[in-house]
């Protein structure tokens, strides 16, 4: 069983602070992490491998710095890692990103693809399903549990909805997107860290390597249907009233406000 896990290196948004004067995000010095949902995707793949055997490849599309994220995945126990990196891939939206990733995945070969449900920096949840579409394979998103069937190359996924769960059977080849409640990702082992830096290598995949699987018109900024027209800092609405008063007085202020707005 060959599993490919797609991950993304993201800024740790919990660590992002605002410049109190300008309201702009301070990105300098913000640590990069493996996107939390993706980390659970890695763990899910490793658990399947522990139980049923197989081979886990982790891939990411990003700048050379994303090498660190892939090494971390190797240190957790993944067997191989590929960094999909090329200037031609730059400026890609979700459509072009998923096209590029699906090109690399076609080249690598797979039975199962696991991605995180969404990344904390973009929150789109689009790349997973779009990879599945480009590959023409079925998907189950929002996975809360993944079990492999004993005698079949198929999986039973507990799929989360707002108001229900479903047990869904899906046959390989397939794509599953992982929720952060799927599992608790293991830590890197000391041996794993040594292996990740001394024995295993992170291979780089450039456009040249996957040109038979994805057309150049479909990658990077040129291959992206969407454009960012502008970005701006959100204008905060005017600050309201602030009271530092005894508790009983505070209660009266709230009561009066609720009456004023006809809530009570």
């Amino acid at each position, binding site marked *: 069983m060959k599993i490919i896990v797609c991950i993304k290196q993201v800024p740790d948004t919990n660590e992002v602070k*605002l410049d109190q004067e300008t309201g702009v995000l301070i990105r300098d010095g913000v640590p990069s992490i493996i996107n939390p949902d993706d980390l659970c995707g890695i763990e899910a793949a490793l658990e399947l491998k522990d139980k049923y055997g197989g081979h886990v490849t982790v891939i990411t599309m990003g700048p050379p710095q994303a090498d660190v994220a892939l090494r971390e995945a190797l240190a957790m126990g993944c067997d191989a890692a590929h960094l999909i990196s090329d200037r031609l891939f730059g400026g890609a939206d979700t459509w072009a990103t998923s096209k590029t990733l699906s090109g690399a995945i076609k080249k690598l070969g797979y039975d199962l693809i696991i991605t995180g449900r969404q990344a904390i920096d973009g929150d789109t949840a689009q790349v997973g399903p779009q990879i599945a579409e480009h590959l023409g394979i079925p998907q189950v998103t929002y996975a809360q549990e993944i079990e492999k069937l004993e005698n079949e190359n198929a999986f039973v996924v507990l799929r989360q909805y707002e108001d229900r769960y479903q047990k869904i059977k899906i046959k390989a080849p397939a794509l599953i997107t992982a929720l952060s409640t799927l599992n608790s990702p293991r830590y890197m082992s000391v041996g794993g860290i040594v292996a990740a830096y001394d024995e295993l290598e992170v291979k780089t995949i450039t456009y040249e390597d996957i040109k038979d699987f994805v057309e150049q018109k479909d990658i990077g900024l040129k291959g992206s249907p969407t454009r960012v*027209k502008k*970005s701006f800092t959100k204008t905060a609405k005017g600050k309201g009233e602030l009271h530092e008063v005894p508790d009983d007085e505070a209660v009266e202020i709230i009561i009066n406000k609720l009456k004023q707005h006809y809530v009570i």
Partner: protein
Amino acid sequence: MSENVLVICEQRDGVLQKVSLELIGKGRELAEKTGQKVVALLMGDGIEKLARVLINHGADKVVYVEHEILKDYMTEPAAKAACAVIKDENPDIVLVGASSIGRDLAPRIAARIETGLTADCTSLTIDDETGEFLMTRPAFGGNIMATIICPQHRPQMATVRPGVMIACDEQPRDGEIKKFDVSFDPGDVTVEILETIKTTKKAKDITEAKILVSGGRGTGNKENFATLRELADVLGGEISASRAAVDLGYAEKDRQVGQTGKTVRPDVYFACGISGAIQHAAGMEESGLIFAINKNSSAPIFEIADVGIVGDMHKIIPKLTARLKKEMA
């Protein structure tokens, strides 16, 4: 030429989801500005009767696809039907609710018909001068807003979270109802639903609540949430939580407000012991009246609160609840 706004509506067990009506409301506004029509797409089994509801909420036309394969949502049959209708209707804009179904379906459709998709938009407008469809969404935790366009591809697709747009009031209206046939084959069933487990919804979905009492890290523990629950009960509201409170196990994941949780815009929002990190603010700052109670007078939540109280929630909330009980008795 492509024209009209198509809203892909969502129903579960024959019940229309609120977000679909909200998107028809938004679609109405966009269509009126450009002199176009709002077309609602409805998919399911035995759902024809819902078409009238969509018209009465502002749709000019309802296209419905009925088939037993569409009874319970599955990605492939829904994508196949939606793509067939999009091809036939050739809309300029397609809107989809960003529910756990919409977020499964919309990217699949966009990839198939080769167009752009902008997720979780908080504002959708038509540029007065250029006529461009401007899709604005929060990025990077919600502090930066990005306006996205889709210049060369049609339709222009966007998803919107529940609770962000406002539905039109229901009133008798005229509209066209059209049945659309899609031929399905066994190959369209690419997954098998073995079992559906409905989560007993004791509590109302927080996106539907008019009043929310929300607890954060400062709530201290799971038991203290009961105090918040009491306040919510007196006011006929629901409880919600910040990401920190959910991560600490004080509240369930489905109660989470914020960038990685739900977007809410209740009439009244109480932020109790919530510092108001940007991730949280992104999910609640559109609320009508925001109260914040926090010990720390420099907590960012006070920047967006209408009424900020510097104080101890553990003392103030029980007093407030008792006082409200008296007031409303």
